């Protein structure tokens, strides 16, 4: 691109005139590029206005809290159900001494399997906790983005970083496809012996 004609110091030329003077020295390709840049600038400005105008109040004041409340209720309901099942199992166990040996063994075996199965409440609770944290992170990022272009929007505090190795590695249940089995873990531990 050729140099623009120098503007003498102290002249009363206004900026549009400077721009016109510069543009008069541009070739066709440079003019087209400048037009593209102007167009992009207008698009960015429009996007900023749209982001600033986004109404996140409904997201952070209604939708996300409602979603997390619903998920909390799921956890509560499953905990109630699991505890009810455990109550029944404990009642069944008290009957075992009154049963003959074979029947008592069957009842004991069934109760054990129910105890094992009730572990679902812990696993689902942890998975739901991860979803709640993801929703909170989405809320934070939306507010962060809109706050950048709308200074009046208050930015929430960021999550405190993990302080210990135990916290850094506390990620909850893995997806079934990537989770290690008990056999995998036993083999890994054995490899250290």
């Amino acid at each position, binding site marked *: 691109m050729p140099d623009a004609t120098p503007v003498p110091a102290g002249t009363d030329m206004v900026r549009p005139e400077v721009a016109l003077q510069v543009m008069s020295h541009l070739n066709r390709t440079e003019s087209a590029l400048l037009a593209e840049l102007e167009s992009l600038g207008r698009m960015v400005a429009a996007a900023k206005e749209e982001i600033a105008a986004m109404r996140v109040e409904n997201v952070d004041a209604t939708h996300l809290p409602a979603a997390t409340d619903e998920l909390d209720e799921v956890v509560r309901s499953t905990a109630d159900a699991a505890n009810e099942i455990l109550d029944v199992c404990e009642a069944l166990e008290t009957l075992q001494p009154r049963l003959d040996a074979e029947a008592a063994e069957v009842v004991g075996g069934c109760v054990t399997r129910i105890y*094992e199965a009730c572990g679902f*409440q*812990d*696993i689902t609770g942890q998975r739901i906790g991860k979803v709640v944290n993801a929703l909170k992170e989405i809320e934070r990022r939306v507010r962060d983005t809109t706050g950048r272009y709308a200074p009046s929007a208050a930015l929430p505090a960021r999550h405190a970083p993990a302080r210990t190795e135990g916290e850094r590695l506390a990620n909850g249940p893995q997806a079934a496809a990537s989770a290690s*089995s008990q056999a995998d873990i036993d083999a890994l531990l054995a490899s250290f012996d």
Partner: protein
Amino acid sequence: MDKNTNVLIVDDYKTMLRIIRNLLKQLDFSNVEEATDGQEALSKLRAGNFGLVISDWNMEPMTGLDLLKEVRADARLKSTPFIMITAESKTENVVAARAAGVSNYIVKPFNAETLREKIEKVMAHA
């Protein structure tokens, strides 16, 4: 295996505490106490006389791994058998627990037989 040993189970899910307690009862362990996070567990361990700790990992304000490190750093508690029962099944978690001195590691969901087998194994080495 001494079934009279004091066992401390640590988990922030009350349902899981109840499940483990009932499974231990089926294994004839009757002296079982509970804690709902690492800090409470550490206080109970320092105040009591426990022969086995069975702990979850993901708890606040102190995780199971941090509890394990505190136990291993405590002159009186450092040789206490410590089983981690957790949904954290990544290799890096198992390696970190092993490096911290875990006695054995059970991944959730688990069954009664796995619990019995791991308890027998760690108690045999206690």
